[in-house]
């Protein structure tokens, strides 16, 4: 006997839509990221061939703690994430990009336009570029005016 294939009725709940729209996007992102973090830990455990009990033993924790970590609801502290990362050989927190982030901010903030009509032509050039003195003066003024000295 062949079965007649009948697809399920699709149902869209207005109540759910209204509630989803009312949720703070930052809070929603936090909930989602906790789940993604738990997923990454679970995948890393599996890649290492570890079940929950073996991982608990490796971390020196009870099984119930690992269950909580993997539930996707846990708010980890950074020490725990570094410990897990070391044991599983994965990076759960990326701390390599701080310098790069600052230089990006610096580059964006010092973009200036040069109006050569007001150039101080009485000052001698200090570099091969005849406008270098003018540029340096303008950049220093911009840095001082915008409190960017911490980035220099």
């Amino acid at each position, binding site marked *: 006997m062949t079965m007649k294939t*009948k*697809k399920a009725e*699709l149902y869209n709940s207005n109540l759910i839509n209204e509630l989803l729209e009312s*949720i703070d996007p930052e809070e929603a992102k936090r909930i989602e990221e906790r789940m993604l973090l738990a997923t990454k830990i*679970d995948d890393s455990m599996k890649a290492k061939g570890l079940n929950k009990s073996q991982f608990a033993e490796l971390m020196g924790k009870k099984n119930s703690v690992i269950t909580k970590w993997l539930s996707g609801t846990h708010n980890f502290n950074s020490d725990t994430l570094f410990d897990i990362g070391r044991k599983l050989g994965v990076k759960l927190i990326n701390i390599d990009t701080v310098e790069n982030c600052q230089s990006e901010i610096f580059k964006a903030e010092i973009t200036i336009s040069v109006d050569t009509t007001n150039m101080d032509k009485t000052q001698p050039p200090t570099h091969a570029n005849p406008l270098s003195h003018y540029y340096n003066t303008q950049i220093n003024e911009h840095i001082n005016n915008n409190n960017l000295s911490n980035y220099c």
Partner: protein
Amino acid sequence: MKFIITFAKHNQMKYRIVKLTNFSGKEASVYTIKDLSTNETLFDQFIKNNLSSSSREIKNILIRLQTIGNETGAREHFFKIKEGTLGDGVCALYDKPKSKLRLYCIRYGMNLIILGNGAPKSKQIRTFQDDDKLTEANYFLRRLSKEIKDRTTAGEICFTNDGMDLEGNLNFYDDEN
């Protein structure tokens, strides 16, 4: 000829398994059960019954279900498993830490879950059987899971090849006795 479908009696409730488009995505399909006498789903009932007392928990559950459907799939570690009988897939979704709100589901691997109803589990009770609402929600899903299993065996319901969907006769009559 063996009849697997139970025929409606006067006091039986009629239900249909429906696919919730609010949460279903590329990673998992999320189904729930519609009461055909009211046209309301069990999951909407769950929200309405608990929104005033557990608003934050409800919103947390909504985002978690959205993430399951679109990002992670219904991974086992997101659920408190073995809340039903052996192998029936009845489980509860974890939500906010220290929250006592239980939402019961039936989980079919990573790609399909059916949401049922639930209620808060008070600290005063040890097991869900001590609470009428939790017991009702849990045992309803146990009966549904058994019916799905029976119909799958009889060829009346099937899972699609990708495990994402249920097809076939998805109407049920529930007799609590």
